[in-house]
């Protein structure tokens, strides 16, 4: 399985999930999954341009995507698992993308509640230190 951990962070900007991405790639590799982190140069603040740009990208040679945040969740792929670590932005495009994802998970109960409130989607909870099996199922 070729699994991309997809995220977004601005160049030279705050990157609160950098350690998480690196750890995920290591943990996937340890369990025999070929994993690579891909970071898109987008701000977390939503805009029409960012949404359109993210939706225009293409992930080739990839069996599964674990998207960690907006707007990485918008990148089209047939097997997206959204694992949100922050409250969703609430944009309609994000709601459509999450509805189309194979599975939606939240890193804690507060994020799950925000996903339910803003998009009406009941997300399971997978904490960062939990076993990664739900991301591979």
């Amino acid at each position, binding site marked *: 399985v070729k699994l991309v951990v997809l995220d977004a962070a601005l160049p030279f900007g705050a990157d609160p999930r950098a350690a998480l991405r690196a750890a995920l790639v290591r943990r996937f590799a340890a369990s025999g999954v070929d994993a*690579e982190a891909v970071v898109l140069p987008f*701000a977390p603040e939503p805009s029409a341009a*960012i949404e359109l*740009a993210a939706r225009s990208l293409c992930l080739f040679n990839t069996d599964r995507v674990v998207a960690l945040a907006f707007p990485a969740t918008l990148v089209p792929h047939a097997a997206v698992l959204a694992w949100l670590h922050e409250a969703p932005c609430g944009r309609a495009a994000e709601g459509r993308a999450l509805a189309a994802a194979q599975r939606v998970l939240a890193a804690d109960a507060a994020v799950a509640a925000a996903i339910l409130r803003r998009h009406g989607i009941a997300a399971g909870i997978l904490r960062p230190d939990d076993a990664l099996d739900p991301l591979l199922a």
Partner: protein
Amino acid sequence: MRIGVVSTIVPFVRGGGRFIAEWLRDKLEEAGHQAALVMLPSSDEPDRILQQMAGFRLIELDAHFDRVITLRPPAHVVRHRCKVAWFIHHIRGFYDLWDTEYRPVPDRAPWTALRDAIRAADTRALGEAHRIFTNSRVVGERLRAFNGIGSEVLYPPVLDPGLFRAGAHGDEIVCICRMEHHKRQHLLVEAMRFVRSGVRLRLCGESFDPAYAAALRDTVLRHGLAARVAIEDRWIAEEEKRALLATALAAAYLPLDEDSYGYPTVEAAHAGRATVTASDAGGALEFVRDGESGIVVPPDPLAIAAAFDALFDDRTLAARLGAAAAERITALGIGWNNVLRSLLA
């Protein structure tokens, strides 16, 4: 200076196209700049190319960088007030390979319109650049012919040339590059059927196409070459590569009409090894001069076998060509100082 190194990647595919970006970022930082990689996922699927280009145009880069340096296509379509293109190849199926078996779509509408739109988009985006460099004369000539755009050649160096070492010449020709059909390792294996000396062949590199590596192995078994041909279709770490080159008889690199001289050629030269290449190898011919810094043969197994035998039989020839290959690096101005000076001017 805040510099963005902007390129494209296909996830899980490693090779020169990715290295050049990572190494450039490292060298810019060593020189005291703030440098960041912007690696955009991309695909050459025909019906996605224009869409990706449009998306790239929407990415805000002005706010983060004083200058961006673009590499693998179609990264050059990004917008920035000071964009320097170090253009390493076109999406060739829509350019010089259009009239070949490598054309990705039929030669009729609407695909001809797509081809023309891609070319127009490339021309416009490159026309916005502050400066344009190519990694070889071959690519520069294609830019001139297809896009009407002039450029300067800027040969890409390897990251740490000083780590390569030259030991005694052994019995083995090594080919260390991705194992793909257009790299033509099959010609090297076929050539081993015809050698008359004790020369051996080692093929190393990851393959995007497992069937190709399997076919190579099948050829080896079918012709009873297992004792003399080693095939390792896996990623070769840098130190392992340096060790293989240090004791090799020579290197072989026979891509079909490659864009640049290819890292395998210059890596071999850093180890004092000559490269055997083919007369239709493209950019490799800018580095390898027949009988001076390597051997150039027709893409024919018999001719390749004769070159292998010549190097095996005459180690002074192998040493002389290898030493000249190392000198050619300097003669061509291949080095990071030159790269940074050019890209930051």
